[in-house]
């Protein structure tokens, strides 16, 4: 735990990188690469949280930040993304 500052001023820019917000998720998107073309990147474009990364092997979901909203699964033209129950 970090020490608190007076008035909740955060003097460190870019500190949001330290805070993983994926723990809010209760449904998890999973890509079926048998269906995924790896080229359209709709999921990458539509993700409101920039939690889908573009890699040479196609899209990759960053579960540290994905909130499980399901927009990628809804938009996927190949229906390659399914929302699975998060288990912890």
């Amino acid at each position, binding site marked *: *735990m970090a020490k*608190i*500052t*007076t*008035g*909740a*001023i*955060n*003097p*460190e*820019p870019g*500190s949001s990188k330290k805070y993983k917000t994926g723990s809010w998720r209760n449904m998890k998107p999973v890509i079926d690469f048998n269906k995924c073309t790896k080229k359209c990147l709709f999921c990458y474009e539509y993700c409101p949280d920039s939690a889908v990364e573009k890699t040479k092997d196609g899209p990759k979901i960053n579960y540290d930040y994905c909130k499980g909203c399901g927009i990628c699964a809804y938009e996927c033209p190949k229906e390659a993304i399914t929302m699975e129950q998060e288990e912890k």
Partner: protein
Amino acid sequence: MKLIVRGNEATAVGAKLSRPDVIPAYPITPSTLFPEKISEYVANGELDTQFITVESEHSAISACIGASATGVRTCTCTASQGLALMHEMLFIAAGMRLPIVMPIGNRALSAPINIWCDHQDTISELDTGWMQFYAEKNQEALDLVIMAFKIAENKYVLLPAMVGLDAFVLTHTMEVVDVPDQKDVDDFLPPYTTSASYLDPTKPATVGSFGTPEYYMEFKYAEELAMNAAEKVIDEVFAEFKQKFGREYKKINTYKTEDADIILVTMGSMSGTARATVRQLRKDGKKVGLAKLTVLRPFPEKELLECAQHAKVLAVVDRNISFGFGGRVFSEVAGKFINRATKPLITNYVVGLGGRDVTINDYKEIVADSENVMNTGKVETQTKWINVKKENL
């Protein structure tokens, strides 16, 4: 220099002498003269400040928060519905630890619409994290504005402060005030500097950030500690003010309490009438005293317990009502005695709502009722409404 001024002008003079860098304000009865005077000072070249005419009280306090967050001195002024409109922002000013000062022309809240005096507006904001001071006369309003800046800006405090002055009874009533010299005020209140110049582009920072459950409570605890620290700082600033300007302030101003059986507890301008009543009743041999609360936040617990240690009855006179409970100051005062082995009986009277006069006769009725409580040892009705025409209901 002596001036004959209305209470609003006294607070405007106090603000001018404190040299705020930014003053956003929105007019509301009974505080409108404050922005009018400030705009006059700016137009005359008497005051170098950014005077912002905003579109609402919510905007006024928001602009104060923005300005104060850049590390400059700022103030505004409002009353009643205007203060209520600021409500959500008051917590933010305190939570961001911004030392904003705000005189309030204490006025009743609607409905029905009423522009006259009671303390309901500031009393309803007791829990926002602002310090609260109450003036009895225009001189106090002027002095308290200057002192409020110094207390608020203290590095151990960094909390905003309200200075209440009663609608019309003070805001629109002319009294002689002794105006301190600018040079002396400059000595007393140096320019505001803060270790965190929050909007400095060379040192980027996030203000108004998110506080998750893991952190939020610590921020609130720090605010509470700052309130506790303010108790000592207020004493120090009052002492320094007396040394420099000769006028003495205490968190609780007492009058003949040392041997009093019954102590009236009051706030604001109605304290003068209470003092006159005490003087009259003393001539009749009645052991009555007065404790006037100048500071309500942080609550002056030590001073209250000290002045009431020999009293048999504390008669708390509330110019506000917490519906379904009683007077709010009564609940505060009574709460501080809860674990004391010896304590006075505590009576409570609601008076003067919506500008109804609080007279010597009202105080005599209050004292007579409290005498009855003292003699019987019983409080039959905890909160009594004084001078209310029940036959008109």
